[in-house]
């Protein structure tokens, strides 16, 4: 019953613990499911190793403080911050640093109220739900609005800081956002910077990585791209990257969703006889080529009127 009366073991087998904790499985999953993101994976592996060693130290009776596990993820949109946060929750759970391992994903709207006295209960409510798991605050810099000193965001920030300090054993806070705006946010709220131990940067995906992601996404929905479509998509990625609001994997997912739409439409208008499963699941070149990106416009823009200049 009582931990303090047991005699600590003299040695510890790290490799055995590594296998037993199930961390290896999470890391393998991370490698298999997430393409690219090498710096992120390295940091996660390092963090996992540190936590494992920490636990071993504790079991040997060495002095060990609960490490600060709050993190900040910075990177452009669509670089996998939320996905990694999800995996992080699982990882920390297996390492025994959070009790339940669920992820509560929130933005400013979920934390900040609309009138005086509304913010504190709202923030507390979210924090209560996140207890025992990971609280993921997307676009955290929106919490702080420097141009309005009466903004209720400040109140949410104060409660967050307090809980991040006092309930370190109960929850892990991960803040995410674009690198430059997060820097301003941390500069204006030094309390956060000192309470967050791990700053992890998410690089943009290369064209090759995006192509692999596309294939993975399509395979998950039992679609496949034929060779023409692959070539067109590679060209699409290159063009799309130069246009504004490029959101890496998310732009790609939207493009593929629209390609599926066009494929369905094509099948309707072209085919007269019965279709094979093969035909139903193949995206062809014209499905991708029809995108406005190839004609110099954004995919999301409305079509240009005649005579209008870009």
């Amino acid at each position, binding site marked *: 019953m009582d931990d303090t009366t047991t005699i600590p073991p003299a040695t510890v087998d790290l490799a055995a613990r590594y296998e037993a904790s199930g961390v290896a499985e999470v890391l393998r999953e991370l490698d298999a499911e997430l393409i690219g993101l090498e710096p992120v994976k390295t940091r996660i592996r390092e963090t996992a190793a540190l936590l494992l060693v920490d636990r071993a130290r504790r079991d040997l009776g060495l002095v060990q403080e609960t490490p600060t596990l709050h993190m900040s993820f910075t990177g452009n949109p669509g670089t996998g911050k939320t996905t990694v946060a999800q995996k992080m929750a699982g990882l920390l759970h297996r390492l025994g640093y959070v*009790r*339940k391992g669920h992820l509560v994903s929130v933005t400013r709207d979920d934390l900040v109220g609309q009138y005086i006295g509304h913010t504190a*209960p709202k923030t507390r409510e979210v924090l*209560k739900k996140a*207890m*025992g798991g990971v609280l993921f605050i997307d676009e955290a810099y929106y919490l702080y609005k420097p141009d309005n000193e009466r903004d209720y965001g400040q109140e949410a920030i104060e409660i967050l800081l307090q809980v991040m300090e006092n309930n370190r054993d*109960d929850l892990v806070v991960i803040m995410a956002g674009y690198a430059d705006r997060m820097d301003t946010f941390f500069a204006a709220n030094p309390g956060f910077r000192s309470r967050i131990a791990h700053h992890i940067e998410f690089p943009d995906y290369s064209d090759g990585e995006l192509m692999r992601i596309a294939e993975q996404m399509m395979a998950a929905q039992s679609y496949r791209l034929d060779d023409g479509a692959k070539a067109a998509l590679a060209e699409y990625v290159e063009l799309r990257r130069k246009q504004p609001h490029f959101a890496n994997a998310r732009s790609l997912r939207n493009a593929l969703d629209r390609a599926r739409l066009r494929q369905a439409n094509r099948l309707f208008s072209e085919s007269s006889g019965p279709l094979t499963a093969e035909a139903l699941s193949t995206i062809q070149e014209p499905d991708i080529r029809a995108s406005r990106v190839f004609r110099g416009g954004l995919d999301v823009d409305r079509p240009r009127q005649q005579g209008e200049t870009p």
Partner: protein
Amino acid sequence: MRITQGCFSFLPDLSDAQITAQVEYCLENGWAIGVEYTDDPHPRNTYWDMWGNPMFDLRDAKGVMMELDACRAAHPDAYIRLNAFDDTRGVESVKMSFIVNRPSEEPTIHMQRTDFEGRTQKYAWDVRR
């Protein structure tokens, strides 16, 4: 006089660790937890004051314990109970209820017996401090 109502009230007071374990059990069953307090422990007083709304969608007992601590800080000398609500039948029915805080000196419940028509007797109880 020790008030006995709800679960565990014939046992010694639960420690915080024991309360946490009970709350974990409730959450595992998917029940929502509400914190209520009162200074009137009369058995007919079913309407205790609510300390905030019942808590839905919690995953960990810590959230409940935070509210309980806040309620204890605000009402150290009140009765506080935790109610667990089960919604499987389409209504939030109380599945479990137990007292987690008592005043340092508990009031007594006094019984008054009155004679009535014929040899009938009527009974009434009131809380006396």
